[in-house]
């Protein structure tokens, strides 16, 4: 089958009424949480995971993925209108987008963001379609030793590109790996770290962990100061661009798309990085760099295209290798596992309809987003008036019901509280929660591959270094770690990354 046939299969899957409906629901919800500060796509997806349990696997993934890239759109809307990026990758958009809004050009800025994002999303989807098959074919040659090293690379690289202290991020990964060992050991059946409680034999629940770390901990952060938002409801007019505007944004959109498509594949916060790099590239390439920061349309077009292209291509490692690049992708892995699908290079062959349907749904979702964001912009602006004192009890309600319904297991609910407090304490102490979630998801895999590799090599641990591909991957991990602790890189990183999306 070539790409064309595959895409055709994708359209057949994605265009069924049910899948279209849930794609729309996903991107609409995503836009909503992107607009609302104080609740991020990670927490939303974690809360909705239990609900998607009863869906078809493809429907559930289409909706969850829609929340992710929908949030990228929503984040830029608030960045432009009220200078408050609802999502970290929209922080750059706020600079010139909000300046344009103050000059009375809010409509123009929103249209630029939406059209640039749509173009970038389309290209990003095509890139995923083109590269997915060859990459997963390479990965199919991997033995357990290569997989072990691949998971190590994924874990290490995710912290090299994240913010904060590298040591702490490493410790968070290890803590996540350890938490992943709770429950019955797969090989021997011995229950580990369960305190003799039968309810813990199945392991800690992934949804509880995610909701606690990203939902409850975030609420506590917000309640520290009492969130106050200035609601500046403006009338948004003139939602179209002139021929001159199109000429000005053409190159920035193209460059941003290219940058985003490449950087999005990187683990960690590839889409945040992409929008920052694109902004500085546009500023350098511009004949009028002095306009940047005062409402340059190029400063909106470039970064917006970059972060949306990156949002699409960040699915590549997930779909081809089963390797989550960030906490959102880790949630999608969790969704796959809940649905009984083993993530990895086999998905593309075993579940072609799921794979291509999901990819095509990205493009359809992007189309929905243009419609949702331009004509319906007034609706989202109104949503900003929802007060936080309504929002966070709703998060608690949805999180507890959803988690409980997963297995009608009270321990799943108790662990939300435990991870909420643990997450809050660790965030207070300067540790990012995302590496812990990645470690938790990948922990069982890592142990499994370690065991299998050592069994095959008859207990010889040098197997990871003597197999060339595995050695190369481990060298890559070592390199990423070294780069991350270099002082010059550190300082730049701190400038680039303010805060990972919650």
């Amino acid at each position, binding site marked *: 089958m070539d790409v064309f046939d595959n895409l055709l299969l994708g359209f057949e899957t994605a265009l069924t009424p049910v899948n279209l409906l849930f794609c729309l629901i996903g991107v609409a919800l995503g836009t909503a949480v992107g607009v609302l500060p104080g609740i991020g796509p990670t927490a939303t997806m974690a809360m909705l995971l239990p609900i998607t349990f009863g869906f078809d696997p493809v429907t559930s993934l289409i909706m969850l993925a829609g929340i992710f890239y929908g949030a990228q759109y929503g984040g830029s809307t608030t960045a432009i209108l009220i200078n408050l990026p609802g999502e970290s990758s929209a922080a750059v958009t706020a600079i010139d987008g909000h300046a344009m809004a103050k000059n009375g050009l809010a409509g123009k800025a929103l249209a630029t963001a939406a059209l640039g994002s749509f173009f970038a999303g389309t290209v990003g989807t095509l890139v995923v379609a083109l590269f997915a098959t060859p990459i997963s074919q390479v990965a199919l040659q991997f033995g357990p030793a290569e997989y072990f090293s691949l998971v190590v690379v994924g874990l290490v690289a995710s912290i090299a590109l994240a913010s904060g202290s590298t040591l702490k991020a490493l410790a968070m990964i290890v803590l996540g790996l350890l938490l992943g060992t709770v429950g019955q050991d797969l090989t021997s059946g011995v229950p*580990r770290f369960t305190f003799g409680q039968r309810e813990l034999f199945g392991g800690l629940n992934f949804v509880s962990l995610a909701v606690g770390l990203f939902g409850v901990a975030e609420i506590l952060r917000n309640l520290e*100061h*009492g969130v106050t938002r200035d609601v500046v409801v403006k009338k948004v007019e003139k939602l179209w661009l002139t021929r001159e505007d199109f000429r000005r944004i053409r190159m920035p959109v193209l460059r941003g798309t290219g940058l985003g498509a490449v950087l999005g594949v990187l683990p960690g916060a590839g889409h945040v990085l992409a929008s920052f790099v694109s902004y500085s590239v546009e500023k350098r390439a511009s004949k009028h760099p002095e306009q940047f920061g005062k409402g340059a349309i190029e400063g909106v077009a470039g970064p917006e295209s970059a972060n949306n292209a990156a949002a699409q291509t960040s699915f590549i490692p997930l779909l081809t290798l089963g390797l989550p690049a960030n906490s959102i992708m880790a949630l999608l892995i969790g969704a796959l596992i809940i649905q009984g699908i083993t993530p990895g290079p086999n998905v593309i062959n075993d579940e072609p309809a799921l794979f291509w349907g999901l990819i095509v749904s990205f493009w359809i979702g992007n189309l929905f987003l243009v419609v949702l964001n331009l004509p319906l912009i007034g609706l989202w602006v109104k949503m900003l008036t929802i007060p936080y004192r*309504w929002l966070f009890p709703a998060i608690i*309600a949805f999180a*507890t*019901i959803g988690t409980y319904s997963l297995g009608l297991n009270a321990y799943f609910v108790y662990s939300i509280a435990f991870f909420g407090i643990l997450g809050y304490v660790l965030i*207070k102490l300067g540790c990012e929660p995302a590496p812990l979630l990645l470690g938790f998801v990948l922990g069982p895999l890592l142990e499994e591959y370690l065991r299998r590799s050592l069994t095959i090599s008859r207990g010889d641990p040098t197997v990871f270094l003597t197999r060339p591909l595995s050695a190369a991957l481990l060298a890559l991990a070592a390199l990423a770690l070294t780069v991350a602790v270099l002082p010059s890189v550190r300082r730049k990183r701190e400038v680039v990354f303010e805060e990972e999306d919650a």
Partner: protein
Amino acid sequence: MDLKNARKDLGAGAVFVAFGLAFATTASTYEVGSGLQMGPGYFPLALGGILVLLGVLIAAKAFVSPETGELGPVPWRAAALLVAAILFFGFAVRGLGIVPTLFVSVLLAALAGPKVRVVPALVIATSLTVLSVVIFIYLLQLPLRLLGPWLS
């Protein structure tokens, strides 16, 4: 050096050392085995050791170049109320049923808000309970009882 500046690193180090020790000592009570025949204790014991080491390094770094920055206020009351809300839900949902349990939990959560008064909190709790029941029980058909055996 100023211990106050190092609080973040020392605290984080202590948390990691504590978790590492707890996992490692428990893991050593399971069969550890060898590289070839890995027992259930092998992987967690190794990771527990690594975590202790990382925790010590983080704490040691506090004496060289601590991560500065204020810890900021801690919303004790909100934290206690949110934990109570979640634990109550887990404890009571089977016995009381979803409606009363959710009402109490959301009420507790709503009271965690800044400068919140009782009447608005009751309004929030009532509306969110109704909304959740409509979404989860009627639309999504979750198999949860509205009222549990403790009430009948």
